């Protein structure tokens, strides 16, 4: 039999409250992870980028 604590809405997640702003920890972590991926995409070198000057592109 399911215990009441397992179906209680109060135990359904953890939230961060800052003033009037409320966000679940899960959503906050996802947004932080997306920002990390975005920054990494800007700073990490793309494979083969060192050779790009030698080959160039065809559509400036």
């Amino acid at each position, binding site marked *: 039999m399911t215990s009441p604590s397992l179906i209680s809405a109060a135990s359904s997640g953890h939230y961060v409250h800052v003033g009037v702003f409320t966000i679940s920890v899960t959503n906050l972590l996802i947004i932080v992870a997306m920002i990390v991926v975005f920054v990494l995409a*800007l700073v990490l070198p793309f494979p083969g980028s060192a050779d790009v000057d030698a080959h160039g*592109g065809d559509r400036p």
Partner: protein
Amino acid sequence: MNAQLRAATAGAAGHPTTSWTTWLRGWVSRLVPPGQALPDRQPTYVVSWIYVFGVLTLAALVVVLASGAVLAAGGVAWWHVSGLGHFVNSLHLWSVELLFAFMVIHLWGKFWMAAWRGQRVLTWVIGVLAFVVSIGTAFTGYLSQSNFDAQWISTQAKDGLNSVGIGAWFNVLNPGQMLLWHVLLLPVAVGVVTVWHVVLVRRHGVVPPFDVEPGD
């Protein structure tokens, strides 16, 4: 055949230009510059991870559509009672999660590049439209889970939609209507808008960084 008559004809078979087939063929052939529909070379500045997220979004969309098609074949209760159904349902959920994550990172990258430069305003606007239509499609997915979660979400959504006067035509309390919007109308809309966006990208090219913009 005189010159005037030749000018009034088009195509190898000599069909008149008033033919809708000729008109459509010409329109399709002019959608993107020659060789740019499926290019195998790109400008040097495209060699960056930030340019990958557009195509990652497209890849996620393919998985979303394929897993959604399998779920549709199984029926609205299949993913609750079958191990394979659970797997495909999870595949559908997580491909959507990745779709939005990739799309938003793509949006961030293009926003900070001011990707609407160089007559690319319509490309930007259609991308925004793709984002909005995708959100609507995802929301109807919440309503199509055939569980208590879907019922709860529908009761929360109805007041907002009724407040803007569309509840009579777009009734979130009607799971049959929401399911059909989710599996037919909105996916078609997402597909059309996505193809439109990609064609515009191929038509105008990838936006260059600020320091290599022509004329600088």
